[in-house]
C-alpha cells in the first residue's frame, strides 16, 4: 500500500477527451478487454467497450428509494452519473461459474473461470472499496477462491472521482468516497464547464504511470488541478444521505430484537434484489449438473442470497424462516458482523440496495431508526 499512496501524492496529468479515448485504445492494444459503463434497457450497466463514445455521454441517473431514471444532462460529460445495478463483482466473481468437472472414472478437473486481462473504466470510490472488501473475503485465506483470484490478477483499474454524488450515495459518511481511495492504477477527475472539458489524472501504480506516459499525457497545470479540486470540494457538500457508523456494530448487537425489524419485515419482499446489486455480497451456492449419459458431472457455483428461504435450510427446516430474520441477518452482516469477520464494514455506501429495492427500503434509514428507537426505549 505504501508505494501506491506515495505515488498518488505526486504527479497530476492532463487528458483531453481525445487522449481519454487514446487511453482506452492503448489498454486494448495491451491486450485488455476494456469494460465500462454503457446504456442498456434504460439503465447504465457495465459491458465491454471499444471507445469512449460508447460511454453514457451527457446522461445522468436520477435515483431515489426504489427509483431509477436516466436523463439528459445538457453537457458532454463522460461520467455524469453514478452507479447502476451492475457492479464489478459481476466480472471478478461471476454470477454462475463452473468450479469442477468430475468424470465417473474419477478424473477431477478444477476450473478457475479462465484468465482474462480486464481494464475497468469508471470505477467509483465506493466500488474500489468494494473490490478491496472482496479481496479480503475471497483472497484473505486461509482458503483462497480460485475464480476470484484468477480474474483479479490482471485487472487494471481506471477510477473516477465523483464530482456529483447521487441521491442515494452515502460514501462520504463511510469514508469510501467520493474520491477513489488507493487501489487504482489511474484515477480521473472529470472537469466539464463553460467551453472546457478535460480530465485530471493521477497514477496509482507503475503500470498506470507507464500508460499515461505512453499516450503522451502532459503534466496538468496548477489552474487545471485547482478546477478539479474545486469540483471535489463541492461534491462533499452535495450528499443527502449518511450512515452514522459510530458504535454501529455494538448498537446492532444490542438491538437484535428491535421493533424496527418487525416493521421492515412487513415491507420487505425478500426478493434478494439488494444482495444481487450489492458490490460486496459474496454468498453462493453450488449445483451438481450431470450430462445425459451420466459419465460427467459438473459443479457450478452461482450467487445466492441470505434472503432466499432455503439459504439456511438444514434437515427439518430453514433456520431463518421469517423475513424478519433474513432482513436482520442481512443488515447485521453488512453493518456489524462483517467488521468482526473481515475488519471492515460490508457496506461501502453506494446506495444500490436503496435504489433497486422494489419497495424502497433504505439501509441508512433503518439503521437510524434502530438508533432512535433504542434511545426512545431507554428514556421512556
Amino acid at each position: 500500500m505504501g508505494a501506491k499512496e506515495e505515488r498518488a501524492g505526486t504527479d497530476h496529468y492532463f487528458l483531453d477527451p481525445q487522449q481519454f479515448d487514446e487511453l482506452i485504445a492503448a489498454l486494448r492494444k495491451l491486450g485488455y478487454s476494456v469494460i465500462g459503463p454503457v446504456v442498456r434497457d434504460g439503465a447504465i450497466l457495465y459491458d465491454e467497450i471499444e471507445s469512449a463514445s460508447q460511454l453514457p455521454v451527457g446522461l445522468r441517473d436520477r435515483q431515489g428509494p426504489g427509483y431509477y431514471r436516466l436523463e439528459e444532462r445538457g453537457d458532454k460529460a463522460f461520467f455524469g452519473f453514478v452507479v447502476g445495478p451492475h457492479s464489478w463483482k459481476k466480472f471478478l466473481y461471476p454470477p454462475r461459474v463452473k468450479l469442477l468437472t468430475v468424470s465417473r472414472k474419477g478424473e477431477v478437473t478444477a476450473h478457475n473461470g479462465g484468465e482474462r486481462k480486464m481494464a475497468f473504466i469508471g470505477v467509483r470510490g465506493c466500488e474500489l472499496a468494494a473490490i478491496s472488501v472482496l479481496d479480503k473475503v475471497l483472497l484473505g485465506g486461509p482458503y483462497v477462491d480460485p475464480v476470484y483470484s484468477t480474474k483479479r490478477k490482471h485487472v487494471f483499474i481506471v477510477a473516477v472521482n465523483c464530482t456529483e454524488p447521487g441521491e442515494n450515495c452515502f460514501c462520504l459518511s463511510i469514508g469510501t468516497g467520493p474520491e477513489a481511495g488507493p487501489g487504482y492504477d489511474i484515477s480521473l477527475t472529470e472537469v466539464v464547464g463553460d467551453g472546457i472539458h478535460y480530465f485530471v489524472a493521477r497514477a496509482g501504480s507503475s503500470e498506470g504511470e507507464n500508460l499515461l506516459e505512453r499516450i503522451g499525457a502532459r503534466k496538468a497545470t496548477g489552474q487545471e488541478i485547482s478546477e478539479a479540486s474545486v469540483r471535489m470540494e463541492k461534491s462533499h457538500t452535495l450528499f443527502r444521505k449518511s450512515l452514522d457508523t459510530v458504535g454501529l456494530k455494538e448498537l446492532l448487537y444490542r438491538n437484535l430484537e428491535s421493533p424496527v425489524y418487525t416493521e421492515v419485515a412487513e415491507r420487505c419482499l425478500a426478493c434478494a434484489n439488494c444482495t444481487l446489486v450489492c458490490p460486496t455480497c459474496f454468498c453462493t451456492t453450488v449445483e451438481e449438473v450431470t450430462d445425459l449419459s451420466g459419465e460427467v458431472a459438473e459443479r457450478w457455483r452461482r450467487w445466492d442470497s441470505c434472503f432466499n428461504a432455503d439459504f439456511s435450510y438444514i434437515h427439518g427446516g430453514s433456520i431463518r424462516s421469517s423475513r424478519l430474520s433474513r432482513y436482520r441477518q442481512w443488515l447485521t452482516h453488512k453493518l456489524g458482523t462483517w467488521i468482526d469477520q473481515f475488519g471492515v464494514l460490508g457496506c461501502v455506501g453506494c446506495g444500490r440496495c436503496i435504489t433497486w429495492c422494489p419497495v424502497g427500503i433504505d439501509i441508512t434509514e433503518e439503521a437510524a431508526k434502530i438508533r432512535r428507537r433504542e434511545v426512545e426505549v431507554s428514556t421512556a
Partner: protein
Amino acid sequence: MIAEPSLRPIGGLETFKMEWYRVVGKARETPDTFTIRMKARGNGEIAFEPGQFNMLYAYGVGEVPISISGAPFNGQLIEHTVRAVGPVTKALASARIGSNLGLRGPFGKGWPLKEAEGQDVVIVGGGIGLAPLRPAIQQIIRKRERYGKFYILYGARTPSDLLYKRDLQNWRGRLDTQLLVTVDKGDEKWRGYIGVVTTLFRHIKLEPNNTYAYVCGPEIMMKFTVQELKNQGLPDDRIFISMERNMKCGVGICGHCQFGPFFICKDGPVFSYSEVSNIFGRREV
C-alpha cells in the same frame, strides 16, 4: 493491500478439489445411519482433530459436511457416520464397499483436548451428535492417564437409535469411565434410564472448576445441557458445543454457515459457550 496487477498471485485451484477415498467397510448403526470406513488412495496417516468435519462428495449428487467419527488403525482409515435424510446423505449411506467417495478436509476447529489435560471431562451427546464426539472419547481413552474423571452421557430417542453399540459396551466396561445412557422412549428389552439426556446429570457430581464439557446434539438438547452444566457451576469458557448450519463450501467462502459474527466452518463447528452465549439459542440467528 492491493498489489500491482503483475504482482498479484493466482491461487486456490485446490480449494474445491476433492480427493477420492475408497469405501472399505460399512456398519449399520440404526435403520437409517451407517458408519462408513474409508481408506485414502495414497498411503499414510489421515491427520485431523477430533470434532473436525469433512465435505463428502457422492458422484453426480452433491457434497455435504459430515463429522469425522473415527480413525481406526492409527489413522490409516477414517470413519464417518452418516444419517440418510436427503439426496446426498442417502447416496453416501448407500455407497458400496469398493466404491469411491470424494473428500475435502479436514475443516474447522475441534474439541480442545489438549486444554483439558489434567482436568475432568464430561461428554454429552444427543442422537447423531455422538459422531463428532467419538474421536474425542477414543483419544481420551487412549491417553487416559492425562485426564481426571471421565463421564460420557448419551441420549437417543429409542434403544434402536443408539449408535456405536459395541463401543458403548466397551466404554461401559471400563472402570475409569462412567458411561450413562438414556432413551426418550424404551422398549420391552430396555433396562436403562428413560428420559432426556439432561436427566442423567442427577447421577453425577461434577467439580465445576476442574471440568471441561463437550456437548453435541440437536440445538434444543444443547441448550438444556448448557443450562444444566451452568446449574452445576461450570463456567461458560469450559463448556464447548458443536454447531450446525447449512454449508456449501466448508472453507469460509460461500457465506451459508454464518452464525452471528462466526463462520461455523472455519471458526467452529466447536465453540466455547462463552464465545456464543449472546446468540446461542436466540431464534433464527
